[in-house]
């Protein structure tokens, strides 16, 4: 479904953020991308929807090659890639509903979006999604009135209303408390399963990643160091990804904690 071939990004400063990354993500697979800060996780997912312009290499979404697309083609393909951000990245002065509907911008004309007269099917879908993430009552609130967890739910609804084939998720839980983090991860994974979506989730919290995903890819200094099942993350593997540290506690934690139900 998504295929990266020798995807490389060298920043103008000469930093090589991605070193010829090859990656294949089949339809419906949720993949966690782990690695230390600066390993190129953010650059990798932004190189896919070209918020960062890759230096060389290719990326296929289905049959479409992304790196060679021009303006209109790129916009069309961006609609198929929903993105969820670390600090939620909601437009704070817009209402929750406007934020969700902004996911439809690629599908409607300028005047419709400017006058906020979206097609009824989009409006209905926005309400359905808000209900699904538990925020139906907040539709007309301004985004900056919400709590962190609520904002991230709006971010999820915005990504899903694009009707994407792939979710690109950048540190969805980095600014959330541990409980909310789990709820958000669970929500993302459930929605991916419901809709058969593939997802790449950048995440710092190794234990949280192991808890929810089917496949883990470890990135170090722009190159893939590990690619396998969550169980394969042994202390030795974590040491090759992150460097020397006592990893036992990180891995043990997974078994000890019990899950809470989605609030």
């Amino acid at each position: 479904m998504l295929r990266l071939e020798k995807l490389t990004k060298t920043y103008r400063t000469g930093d090589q953020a991605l070193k010829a990354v090859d990656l294949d993500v089949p339809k419906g697979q949720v993949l966690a991308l782990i690695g230390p800060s600066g390993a190129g996780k953010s650059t990798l997912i932004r190189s896919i929807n070209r918020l960062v312009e890759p230096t060389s290499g290719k990326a296929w979404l289905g049959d479409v090659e992304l790196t060679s697309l021009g303006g209109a083609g790129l916009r069309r393909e961006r609609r198929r890639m929903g993105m969820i951000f670390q600090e939620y990245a909601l437009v704070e002065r817009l209402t929750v509903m406007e934020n969700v509907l902004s996911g439809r911008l690629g599908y409607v004309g300028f005047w419709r979006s400017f006058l906020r007269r979206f097609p009824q099917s989009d409006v209905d879908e926005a309400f359905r999604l808000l209900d699904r993430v538990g925020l139906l009552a907040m539709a007309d609130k301004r985004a900056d009135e919400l709590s962190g967890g609520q904002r991230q739910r709006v971010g999820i609804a915005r990504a899903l209303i694009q009707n994407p084939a792939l979710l690109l998720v950048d540190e969805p839980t980095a600014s959330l408390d541990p409980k909310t983090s789990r709820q958000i991860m669970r929500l993302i994974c459930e929605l991916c399963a419901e809709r058969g979506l593939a997802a790449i989730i950048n995440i710092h919290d190794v234990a949280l990643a192991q808890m929810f995903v089917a496949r883990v890819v470890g990135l170090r200094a722009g190159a893939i160091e590990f690619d396998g099942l969550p169980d394969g993350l042994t202390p030795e593997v974590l040491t090759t990804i992150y460097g020397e540290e006592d990893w036992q506690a990180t891995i043990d934690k997974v078994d000890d904690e019990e899950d809470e139900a989605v609030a």
Partner: protein
Amino acid sequence: MSGVLAERIGRPWKKPPLIKSAAWRWGLGIAALVYLVLAIGSIEVNWSRVYEGLERGWAFIVAFANPDFNSRASDITEGMIESVIITITSTVVGIAISIPIALGAAGNIAPMPVYLICRGIVALSRALNEIIVAILLVAIFGFGPLAGFLTLSFATIGFLSKLLAEDIENMDRSQAEAIKATGPSWLQWINYGVQPQVMPRLIGLSMYRLDINFRESAVLGLVGAGGIGATLNTAFDRYEFDTAAAILLIIIVTVMALEYLSGIIRARVQ
């Protein structure tokens, strides 16, 4: 205890001075003082002329105590209406032109050639003082409010474009990036990702500019660009200080009212 720490313990701490070298620090201070003394010494004051002027000044102040709104009421009304028209039209037209230029002058969203052109327009507008532009435009279009309107529209562009562009450059990148990731057209991206972030500033600056344009329209009248300034100029020329005082009072009250109004509006849009 390490050696570096042992050396520090027990000794007072002072903020490092802005200029490190003591000689430079004192030298610059003394030089500034000497220059100040010499500069004050070089001002020539003609005291007998000041004495004569005091009398006129006093007449002017006395006139303020009993301003005359009536004898030139129709001139004043006409001038005020003209000024208000100049102010509103030039602000509206200026803002309308400023917004696209501000988008072009924001380095984070405009491509380099557009950026340079728009910055050039802003620099030109800011480099030319209103009075100078007004003199030029009065020479081209003749006496009257048209020259005033054009001058203030031009001045508004420099002011609003620059400050709005700076606000766009300071916006939160991630919000704009998130909108961009949904695949919108450029205009949709501006409308959803950028505009909501800069709207309060745009409204605040527009109100502030309305205020400035009214004050400027009073000054521009002095060089023939119409408005209440022209009425004021005539009153001075005729030595009708009581009428001039009335006009100045009206200007002051109007500016204060605008200031108060813009304060309320700016507080509301946050």
